[in-house]
Protein backbone atom coordinates (compact mmCIF):
# COMPACT_ATOMS: atom_id res chain seq x y z
CA UNK A 1 0.00 0.00 0.00
CA UNK A 2 1.41 3.32 -1.01
CA UNK A 3 0.18 5.62 1.69
CA UNK A 4 1.68 8.87 2.88
CA UNK A 5 0.90 9.91 6.40
CA UNK A 6 -0.14 13.49 6.87
CA UNK A 7 -0.41 14.25 10.53
CA UNK A 8 -0.02 18.01 10.12
CA UNK A 9 -3.69 18.96 10.12
CA UNK A 10 -4.41 16.47 12.88
CA UNK A 11 -1.77 17.92 15.15
CA UNK A 12 -3.08 21.43 14.68
CA UNK A 13 -6.50 20.05 15.66
CA UNK A 14 -5.12 18.30 18.73
CA UNK A 15 -6.36 20.93 21.21
CA UNK A 16 -9.80 20.63 19.59
CA UNK A 17 -9.71 16.84 20.02
CA UNK A 18 -8.52 17.13 23.60
CA UNK A 19 -11.40 19.47 24.36
CA UNK A 20 -13.65 16.70 23.05
CA UNK A 21 -11.88 14.19 25.27
CA UNK A 22 -12.61 16.40 28.26
CA UNK A 23 -16.31 16.41 27.37
CA UNK A 24 -16.20 12.60 27.03
CA UNK A 25 -14.76 12.36 30.54
CA UNK A 26 -17.38 14.77 31.87
CA UNK A 27 -20.21 12.73 30.38
CA UNK A 28 -18.73 9.52 31.82
CA UNK A 29 -18.25 11.04 35.29
CA UNK A 30 -21.75 12.54 35.42
CA UNK A 31 -23.44 9.40 34.13
CA UNK A 32 -21.37 7.24 36.48
CA UNK A 33 -22.28 9.17 39.61
CA UNK A 34 -25.92 9.42 38.52
CA UNK A 35 -25.79 5.68 37.96
CA UNK A 36 -24.24 5.18 41.40
CA UNK A 37 -27.18 6.94 43.04
CA UNK A 38 -29.64 4.75 41.13
CA UNK A 39 -27.46 1.69 41.71
CA UNK A 40 -27.28 2.17 45.48
CA UNK A 41 -31.04 2.63 45.72
CA UNK A 42 -31.55 -0.28 43.33
CA UNK A 43 -29.26 -2.61 45.26
CA UNK A 44 -30.99 -1.67 48.51
CA UNK A 45 -34.35 -2.32 46.85
CA UNK A 46 -33.27 -5.69 45.47
CA UNK A 47 -31.69 -6.93 48.69
CA UNK A 48 -33.84 -5.30 51.37
CA UNK A 49 -37.00 -4.13 49.61
CA UNK A 50 -40.54 -5.49 49.62
CA UNK A 51 -41.48 -8.08 46.96
CA UNK A 52 -43.19 -5.42 44.84
CA UNK A 53 -40.18 -3.12 45.01
CA UNK A 54 -37.89 -6.00 44.14
CA UNK A 55 -39.96 -6.83 41.09
CA UNK A 56 -39.81 -3.23 39.86
CA UNK A 57 -36.04 -3.11 40.37
CA UNK A 58 -35.59 -6.44 38.60
CA UNK A 59 -37.68 -5.31 35.63
CA UNK A 60 -35.55 -2.19 35.35
CA UNK A 61 -32.34 -4.22 35.44
CA UNK A 62 -33.59 -6.78 32.94
CA UNK A 63 -34.66 -4.08 30.50
CA UNK A 64 -31.50 -2.00 30.66
CA UNK A 65 -28.98 -4.84 30.68
CA UNK A 66 -30.64 -6.69 27.80
CA UNK A 67 -31.12 -3.93 25.26
CA UNK A 68 -28.34 -2.04 23.45
CA UNK A 69 -27.46 1.24 25.04
CA UNK A 70 -27.67 2.94 21.67
CA UNK A 71 -31.27 1.82 21.28
CA UNK A 72 -32.03 3.12 24.77
CA UNK A 73 -30.68 6.54 23.86
CA UNK A 74 -32.53 6.54 20.50
CA UNK A 75 -35.65 5.83 22.48
CA UNK A 76 -35.09 8.82 24.76
CA UNK A 77 -34.13 11.08 21.87
CA UNK A 78 -36.78 10.16 19.31
CA UNK A 79 -39.68 8.69 21.28
CA UNK A 80 -39.90 10.96 24.29
CA UNK A 81 -40.66 14.06 22.14
CA UNK A 82 -43.96 12.32 21.23
CA UNK A 83 -44.77 12.53 24.92
CA UNK A 84 -43.82 16.19 24.95
CA UNK A 85 -40.39 15.66 26.50
CA UNK A 86 -37.73 17.07 24.22
CA UNK A 87 -34.14 16.42 25.16
CA UNK A 88 -31.16 17.90 23.39
CA UNK A 89 -28.55 15.34 22.25
CA UNK A 90 -26.28 15.79 25.26
CA UNK A 91 -29.18 15.45 27.68
CA UNK A 92 -30.46 12.33 25.93
CA UNK A 93 -27.00 10.74 26.01
CA UNK A 94 -26.46 11.68 29.65
CA UNK A 95 -29.84 10.39 30.73
CA UNK A 96 -29.51 7.21 28.67
CA UNK A 97 -26.03 6.44 29.99
CA UNK A 98 -27.12 7.21 33.55
CA UNK A 99 -30.11 4.86 33.37
CA UNK A 100 -28.00 2.18 31.74
CA UNK A 101 -25.25 2.57 34.33
CA UNK A 102 -27.88 2.46 37.09
CA UNK A 103 -28.90 -1.03 36.01
CA UNK A 104 -25.34 -2.40 35.85
CA UNK A 105 -24.27 -0.64 39.04
CA UNK A 106 -27.31 -2.07 40.83
CA UNK A 107 -26.07 -5.54 39.94
CA UNK A 108 -22.51 -4.76 41.03
CA UNK A 109 -23.59 -3.20 44.32
CA UNK A 110 -26.02 -5.99 45.07
CA UNK A 111 -23.01 -8.31 45.13
CA UNK A 112 -21.39 -5.96 47.64
CA UNK A 113 -24.47 -5.83 49.85
CA UNK A 114 -24.71 -9.60 50.02
CA UNK A 115 -20.97 -10.07 50.61
CA UNK A 116 -21.04 -8.53 54.08
CA UNK A 117 -20.24 -11.32 56.45
CA UNK A 118 -22.75 -12.08 59.17
CA UNK A 119 -19.82 -13.00 61.43
CA UNK A 120 -18.45 -9.46 61.26
CA UNK A 121 -21.91 -8.07 62.01
CA UNK A 122 -22.17 -10.39 65.02
CA UNK A 123 -18.81 -9.17 66.24
CA UNK A 124 -19.90 -5.55 65.79
CA UNK A 125 -23.12 -6.20 67.71
CA UNK A 126 -21.47 -7.86 70.69
CA UNK A 127 -18.82 -5.16 70.82
CA UNK A 128 -21.73 -2.84 71.50
CA UNK A 129 -22.10 -1.13 68.11
CA UNK A 130 -25.54 0.16 67.15
CA UNK A 131 -26.97 -0.59 63.71
CA UNK A 132 -25.77 2.77 62.41
CA UNK A 133 -22.30 2.27 63.91
CA UNK A 134 -22.05 -1.18 62.27
CA UNK A 135 -22.94 0.37 58.92
CA UNK A 136 -20.43 3.18 59.42
CA UNK A 137 -17.48 1.15 60.69
CA UNK A 138 -18.03 -2.33 59.29
CA UNK A 139 -20.49 -2.57 56.39
CA UNK A 140 -19.59 0.49 54.32
CA UNK A 141 -15.80 0.05 54.40
CA UNK A 142 -16.27 -3.59 53.49
CA UNK A 143 -18.67 -2.85 50.63
CA UNK A 144 -16.48 -0.08 49.24
CA UNK A 145 -13.44 -2.30 49.34
CA UNK A 146 -15.21 -5.21 47.68
CA UNK A 147 -16.77 -3.07 44.98
CA UNK A 148 -13.98 -0.67 44.18
CA UNK A 149 -12.40 -2.77 41.42
CA UNK A 150 -15.61 -3.75 39.56
CA UNK A 151 -16.92 -0.19 39.84
CA UNK A 152 -13.67 1.16 38.43
CA UNK A 153 -13.88 -1.26 35.52
CA UNK A 154 -17.39 -0.16 34.78
CA UNK A 155 -16.32 3.46 34.82
CA UNK A 156 -13.65 2.72 32.20
CA UNK A 157 -16.24 0.99 30.03
CA UNK A 158 -18.45 4.05 30.37
CA UNK A 159 -15.65 6.37 29.26
CA UNK A 160 -15.37 4.35 26.05
CA UNK A 161 -19.16 4.16 25.76
CA UNK A 162 -19.40 7.95 25.55
CA UNK A 163 -18.31 7.62 21.89
CA UNK A 164 -21.94 6.71 21.20
CA UNK A 165 -22.77 10.37 21.74
CA UNK A 166 -21.19 11.10 18.34
CA UNK A 167 -24.19 9.45 16.70
CA UNK A 168 -26.35 12.20 18.17
CA UNK A 169 -23.98 14.96 17.15
CA UNK A 170 -22.53 15.58 20.58
CA UNK A 171 -19.20 17.33 20.30
CA UNK A 172 -17.16 14.85 22.36
CA UNK A 173 -13.95 13.12 21.30
CA UNK A 174 -15.41 10.78 18.66
CA UNK A 175 -17.78 13.49 17.44
CA UNK A 176 -14.91 15.90 16.92
CA UNK A 177 -12.80 13.21 15.25
CA UNK A 178 -15.70 12.62 12.90
CA UNK A 179 -15.84 16.35 12.05
CA UNK A 180 -12.11 16.57 11.39
CA UNK A 181 -12.33 13.48 9.22
CA UNK A 182 -15.13 15.06 7.20
CA UNK A 183 -12.98 18.12 6.58
CA UNK A 184 -9.64 16.48 5.91
CA UNK A 185 -10.42 12.93 4.75
CA UNK A 186 -7.27 11.81 6.63
CA UNK A 187 -9.23 8.96 8.20
CA UNK A 188 -6.27 6.79 9.19
CA UNK A 189 -4.50 9.67 10.94
CA UNK A 190 -7.64 11.08 12.56
CA UNK A 191 -8.90 7.85 14.02
CA UNK A 192 -5.44 6.60 15.01
CA UNK A 193 -4.86 9.75 17.03
CA UNK A 194 -8.38 9.48 18.45
CA UNK A 195 -7.80 5.88 19.48
CA UNK A 196 -4.53 6.85 21.14
CA UNK A 197 -6.29 9.62 23.03
CA UNK A 198 -8.87 7.10 24.32
CA UNK A 199 -6.07 4.78 25.42
CA UNK A 200 -4.34 7.63 27.24
CA UNK A 201 -7.54 8.68 29.00
CA UNK A 202 -8.41 5.18 30.14
CA UNK A 203 -4.84 4.43 31.28
CA UNK A 204 -4.77 7.68 33.23
CA UNK A 205 -8.17 6.96 34.76
CA UNK A 206 -7.15 3.39 35.65
CA UNK A 207 -3.98 4.61 37.33
CA UNK A 208 -5.77 7.28 39.33
CA UNK A 209 -8.42 4.76 40.40
CA UNK A 210 -5.87 2.08 41.28
CA UNK A 211 -3.79 4.50 43.34
CA UNK A 212 -6.87 5.89 45.07
CA UNK A 213 -8.08 2.35 45.77
CA UNK A 214 -4.77 1.35 47.30
CA UNK A 215 -4.41 4.47 49.36
CA UNK A 216 -8.00 4.71 50.61
CA UNK A 217 -9.37 1.20 50.73
CA UNK A 218 -6.41 -1.16 50.54
CA UNK A 219 -7.68 -2.56 47.26
CA UNK A 220 -5.10 -4.48 45.29
CA UNK A 221 -5.58 -3.47 41.66
CA UNK A 222 -3.40 -3.58 38.61
CA UNK A 223 -2.65 -0.20 37.13
CA UNK A 224 -3.70 -1.08 33.60
Amino acid at each position, binding site marked *: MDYRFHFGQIFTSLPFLMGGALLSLEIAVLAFFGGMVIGTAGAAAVTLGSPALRRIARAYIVFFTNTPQLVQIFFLFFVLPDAGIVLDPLQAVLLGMTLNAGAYLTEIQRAGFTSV*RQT*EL*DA*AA*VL*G*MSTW*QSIRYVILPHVVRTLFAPLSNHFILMVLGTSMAAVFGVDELTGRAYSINAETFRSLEVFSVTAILYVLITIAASMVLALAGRALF*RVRMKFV
Partner: protein
Amino acid sequence: MPTLDIDNLGASYGGNTVLRGVTMALRTGEVMSLIGPSGSGKSTLLRVLVGLLVPDHGRVVVDGAPVNYANKQSVRALRERCAIVFQQYNLFQNMNVLENVAVTPVRIRKRPRREVEAEAMALLARVGLGDKIRSYPDELSGGQQQRVAIARALALKPEFLFLDEITAALDPELVSDVLDVIRGLANDGMTMLIVSHEMAFVREISDRVVFMADGLVVETGTPTEIFDHPQMPRTRDFVGKILRH
Protein backbone atom coordinates in the same frame (compact mmCIF):
# COMPACT_ATOMS: atom_id res chain seq x y z
CA MET B 1 -21.18 -14.92 95.47
CA PRO B 2 -22.78 -15.81 92.14
CA THR B 3 -22.68 -12.98 89.62
CA LEU B 4 -24.08 -14.49 86.42
CA ASP B 5 -27.21 -16.51 87.05
CA ILE B 6 -28.84 -18.42 84.24
CA ASP B 7 -32.27 -19.69 85.11
CA ASN B 8 -34.35 -22.08 82.97
CA LEU B 9 -33.07 -20.49 79.76
CA GLY B 10 -34.68 -21.69 76.51
CA ALA B 11 -33.95 -20.72 72.91
CA SER B 12 -34.65 -21.93 69.40
CA TYR B 13 -33.37 -21.45 65.87
CA GLY B 14 -36.10 -21.21 63.25
CA GLY B 15 -38.52 -23.49 65.08
CA ASN B 16 -35.84 -25.90 66.33
CA THR B 17 -35.60 -25.82 70.08
CA VAL B 18 -31.90 -25.80 70.96
CA LEU B 19 -31.95 -24.86 74.64
CA ARG B 20 -34.63 -26.48 76.75
CA GLY B 21 -34.20 -24.81 80.10
CA VAL B 22 -30.59 -24.34 81.12
CA THR B 23 -29.82 -23.37 84.70
CA MET B 24 -26.33 -22.58 85.96
CA ALA B 25 -24.38 -19.89 87.76
CA LEU B 26 -20.98 -18.39 87.06
CA ARG B 27 -19.13 -16.89 90.02
CA THR B 28 -16.59 -14.10 89.96
CA GLY B 29 -13.10 -15.30 89.14
CA GLU B 30 -14.33 -18.69 88.11
CA VAL B 31 -13.41 -20.57 84.94
CA MET B 32 -16.31 -22.72 83.84
CA SER B 33 -16.23 -24.94 80.78
CA LEU B 34 -19.15 -26.28 78.77
CA ILE B 35 -18.62 -29.66 77.17
CA GLY B 36 -20.96 -31.97 75.34
CA PRO B 37 -21.76 -33.43 71.94
CA SER B 38 -22.32 -31.27 68.87
CA GLY B 39 -25.78 -29.76 68.87
CA SER B 40 -26.10 -29.88 72.65
CA GLY B 41 -26.59 -26.10 72.76
CA LYS B 42 -23.24 -24.94 74.17
CA SER B 43 -22.52 -22.31 71.52
CA THR B 44 -26.18 -21.31 71.41
CA LEU B 45 -26.07 -20.63 75.13
CA LEU B 46 -23.17 -18.20 74.61
CA ARG B 47 -24.99 -16.53 71.71
CA VAL B 48 -28.04 -16.04 73.89
CA LEU B 49 -25.95 -14.67 76.76
CA VAL B 50 -24.45 -11.92 74.57
CA GLY B 51 -27.77 -11.07 72.96
CA LEU B 52 -27.25 -12.45 69.44
CA LEU B 53 -30.24 -14.73 69.91
CA VAL B 54 -33.28 -13.72 71.91
CA PRO B 55 -34.27 -16.41 74.44
CA ASP B 56 -37.74 -17.99 74.34
CA HIS B 57 -38.00 -18.21 78.10
CA GLY B 58 -35.96 -18.09 81.27
CA ARG B 59 -33.85 -15.40 82.88
CA VAL B 60 -30.28 -14.20 82.92
CA VAL B 61 -29.42 -12.20 86.02
CA VAL B 62 -26.19 -10.24 86.26
CA ASP B 63 -25.30 -9.14 89.79
CA GLY B 64 -28.92 -9.37 90.83
CA ALA B 65 -30.28 -7.40 87.88
CA PRO B 66 -32.23 -9.35 85.24
CA VAL B 67 -31.27 -8.75 81.61
CA ASN B 68 -34.11 -7.81 79.28
CA TYR B 69 -33.01 -9.18 75.91
CA ALA B 70 -35.88 -7.47 74.11
CA ASN B 71 -34.63 -4.07 75.27
CA LYS B 72 -31.71 -2.49 73.40
CA GLN B 73 -30.54 -0.47 76.39
CA SER B 74 -30.49 -3.51 78.60
CA VAL B 75 -28.57 -5.55 76.02
CA ARG B 76 -26.10 -2.71 75.51
CA ALA B 77 -25.52 -2.43 79.23
CA LEU B 78 -24.90 -6.18 79.33
CA ARG B 79 -22.42 -5.96 76.45
CA GLU B 80 -20.43 -3.37 78.36
CA ARG B 81 -19.72 -6.03 80.97
CA CYS B 82 -19.09 -9.10 78.86
CA ALA B 83 -17.15 -10.00 75.75
CA ILE B 84 -17.11 -13.01 73.45
CA VAL B 85 -14.48 -14.55 71.19
CA PHE B 86 -15.82 -16.60 68.30
CA GLN B 87 -14.57 -19.73 66.61
CA GLN B 88 -14.07 -17.84 63.34
CA TYR B 89 -12.30 -14.82 64.95
CA ASN B 90 -14.71 -12.42 63.15
CA LEU B 91 -12.12 -9.67 62.88
CA PHE B 92 -12.98 -6.59 60.86
CA GLN B 93 -11.17 -7.22 57.58
CA ASN B 94 -10.94 -3.55 56.65
CA MET B 95 -9.05 -2.61 59.82
CA ASN B 96 -5.52 -3.41 60.85
CA VAL B 97 -4.75 -5.25 64.07
CA LEU B 98 -4.47 -2.15 66.23
CA GLU B 99 -7.68 -0.65 64.80
CA ASN B 100 -9.56 -3.89 65.40
CA VAL B 101 -8.61 -3.76 69.06
CA ALA B 102 -9.07 -0.01 69.51
CA VAL B 103 -12.19 0.69 67.44
CA THR B 104 -14.77 -0.08 70.10
CA PRO B 105 -13.15 1.71 73.04
CA VAL B 106 -12.43 4.77 70.87
CA ARG B 107 -15.51 4.98 68.64
CA ILE B 108 -18.22 3.45 70.74
CA ARG B 109 -17.12 4.13 74.29
CA LYS B 110 -15.56 7.47 73.32
CA ARG B 111 -12.39 7.02 75.30
CA PRO B 112 -9.25 9.01 74.37
CA ARG B 113 -7.47 7.41 71.42
CA ARG B 114 -3.97 7.80 72.85
CA GLU B 115 -4.85 6.03 76.06
CA VAL B 116 -6.76 3.24 74.29
CA GLU B 117 -3.96 2.64 71.80
CA ALA B 118 -1.40 2.36 74.58
CA GLU B 119 -3.60 -0.24 76.27
CA ALA B 120 -4.24 -2.01 72.98
CA MET B 121 -0.52 -2.26 72.29
CA ALA B 122 0.06 -3.67 75.76
CA LEU B 123 -2.70 -6.24 75.16
CA LEU B 124 -1.28 -7.17 71.77
CA ALA B 125 2.16 -7.57 73.29
CA ARG B 126 0.61 -9.80 75.92
CA VAL B 127 -0.89 -12.10 73.28
CA GLY B 128 2.46 -12.13 71.47
CA LEU B 129 1.56 -9.85 68.59
CA GLY B 130 3.38 -6.67 69.55
CA ASP B 131 5.14 -6.68 66.18
CA LYS B 132 1.96 -7.12 64.11
CA ILE B 133 -0.06 -4.06 65.07
CA ARG B 134 -0.07 -2.64 61.53
CA SER B 135 -0.88 -5.95 59.82
CA TYR B 136 -4.32 -6.69 58.40
CA PRO B 137 -6.27 -9.83 59.34
CA ASP B 138 -5.73 -11.45 55.94
CA GLU B 139 -1.98 -11.20 56.47
CA LEU B 140 -2.10 -13.23 59.71
CA SER B 141 -2.37 -16.94 60.46
CA GLY B 142 -5.52 -18.27 62.08
CA GLY B 143 -3.84 -18.49 65.46
CA GLN B 144 -2.64 -14.91 65.21
CA GLN B 145 -6.09 -13.70 64.17
CA GLN B 146 -7.61 -15.52 67.11
CA ARG B 147 -5.16 -13.85 69.48
CA VAL B 148 -6.12 -10.47 68.01
CA ALA B 149 -9.76 -11.37 68.64
CA ILE B 150 -8.89 -12.15 72.27
CA ALA B 151 -7.08 -8.82 72.61
CA ARG B 152 -10.09 -7.08 71.06
CA ALA B 153 -12.36 -8.70 73.63
CA LEU B 154 -10.01 -7.81 76.50
CA ALA B 155 -9.83 -4.18 75.37
CA LEU B 156 -13.46 -3.90 76.49
CA LYS B 157 -12.28 -4.72 80.02
CA PRO B 158 -15.01 -7.31 80.38
CA GLU B 159 -16.10 -8.77 83.70
CA PHE B 160 -17.12 -11.95 81.90
CA LEU B 161 -15.29 -13.45 78.96
CA PHE B 162 -17.05 -16.04 76.81
CA LEU B 163 -14.96 -18.22 74.51
CA ASP B 164 -16.80 -20.14 71.81
CA GLU B 165 -14.66 -23.01 70.52
CA ILE B 166 -11.85 -20.60 69.89
CA THR B 167 -9.35 -23.26 68.85
CA ALA B 168 -11.70 -25.39 66.75
CA ALA B 169 -10.83 -23.69 63.45
CA LEU B 170 -7.08 -23.60 64.07
CA ASP B 171 -4.35 -25.84 62.76
CA PRO B 172 -3.08 -28.06 65.60
CA GLU B 173 0.31 -26.38 65.83
CA LEU B 174 -1.34 -23.00 66.41
CA VAL B 175 -3.61 -24.11 69.24
CA SER B 176 -1.06 -23.98 72.03
CA ASP B 177 -0.26 -20.27 71.55
CA VAL B 178 -3.93 -19.44 71.93
CA LEU B 179 -4.40 -21.69 74.94
CA ASP B 180 -1.34 -20.14 76.60
CA VAL B 181 -3.06 -16.77 76.42
CA ILE B 182 -6.21 -18.18 78.04
CA ARG B 183 -4.13 -19.88 80.72
CA GLY B 184 -2.58 -16.49 81.51
CA LEU B 185 -6.01 -14.92 81.81
CA ALA B 186 -7.20 -17.66 84.15
CA ASN B 187 -4.17 -17.08 86.35
CA ASP B 188 -5.08 -13.40 86.49
CA GLY B 189 -8.52 -14.28 87.80
CA MET B 190 -10.61 -13.51 84.68
CA THR B 191 -14.14 -14.90 84.93
CA MET B 192 -14.61 -17.11 81.91
CA LEU B 193 -17.21 -19.37 80.36
CA ILE B 194 -15.50 -21.62 77.84
CA VAL B 195 -16.95 -23.87 75.16
CA SER B 196 -14.18 -26.17 74.04
CA HIS B 197 -13.40 -29.57 72.60
CA GLU B 198 -9.83 -29.48 73.94
CA MET B 199 -10.56 -31.82 76.83
CA ALA B 200 -7.05 -31.86 78.27
CA PHE B 201 -7.14 -28.08 78.37
CA VAL B 202 -10.65 -27.99 79.87
CA ARG B 203 -9.55 -30.36 82.57
CA GLU B 204 -6.45 -28.35 83.38
CA ILE B 205 -7.94 -24.88 83.39
CA SER B 206 -11.52 -25.22 84.66
CA ASP B 207 -12.77 -24.73 88.17
CA ARG B 208 -16.02 -26.36 87.15
CA VAL B 209 -17.16 -28.32 84.12
CA VAL B 210 -20.74 -28.42 82.84
CA PHE B 211 -21.78 -31.33 80.68
CA MET B 212 -24.66 -30.47 78.33
CA ALA B 213 -26.74 -32.65 76.05
CA ASP B 214 -29.91 -31.95 74.06
CA GLY B 215 -30.16 -28.40 75.29
CA LEU B 216 -30.02 -29.28 78.96
CA VAL B 217 -27.41 -29.36 81.70
CA VAL B 218 -26.86 -33.01 82.49
CA GLU B 219 -24.16 -32.74 85.12
CA THR B 220 -21.95 -30.13 86.75
CA GLY B 221 -18.83 -30.72 88.79
CA THR B 222 -15.12 -30.21 89.18
CA PRO B 223 -12.96 -31.54 86.35
CA THR B 224 -12.09 -34.56 88.48
CA GLU B 225 -15.75 -35.27 89.19
CA ILE B 226 -16.81 -34.99 85.57
CA PHE B 227 -13.86 -36.71 83.89
CA ASP B 228 -12.98 -39.34 86.50
CA HIS B 229 -16.22 -40.00 88.36
CA PRO B 230 -19.15 -39.00 86.18
CA GLN B 231 -22.47 -39.76 87.85
CA MET B 232 -24.92 -39.62 84.96
CA PRO B 233 -24.94 -42.31 82.27
CA ARG B 234 -24.84 -39.76 79.43
CA THR B 235 -21.82 -38.05 80.94
CA ARG B 236 -20.10 -41.39 81.43
CA ASP B 237 -20.85 -42.31 77.85
CA PHE B 238 -19.51 -39.01 76.48
CA VAL B 239 -16.40 -38.94 78.66
CA GLY B 240 -15.74 -42.60 77.88
CA LYS B 241 -15.80 -41.88 74.16
CA ILE B 242 -13.43 -38.96 74.49
CA LEU B 243 -10.95 -40.70 76.73
CA ARG B 244 -10.82 -43.70 74.42
CA HIS B 245 -10.13 -41.24 71.65
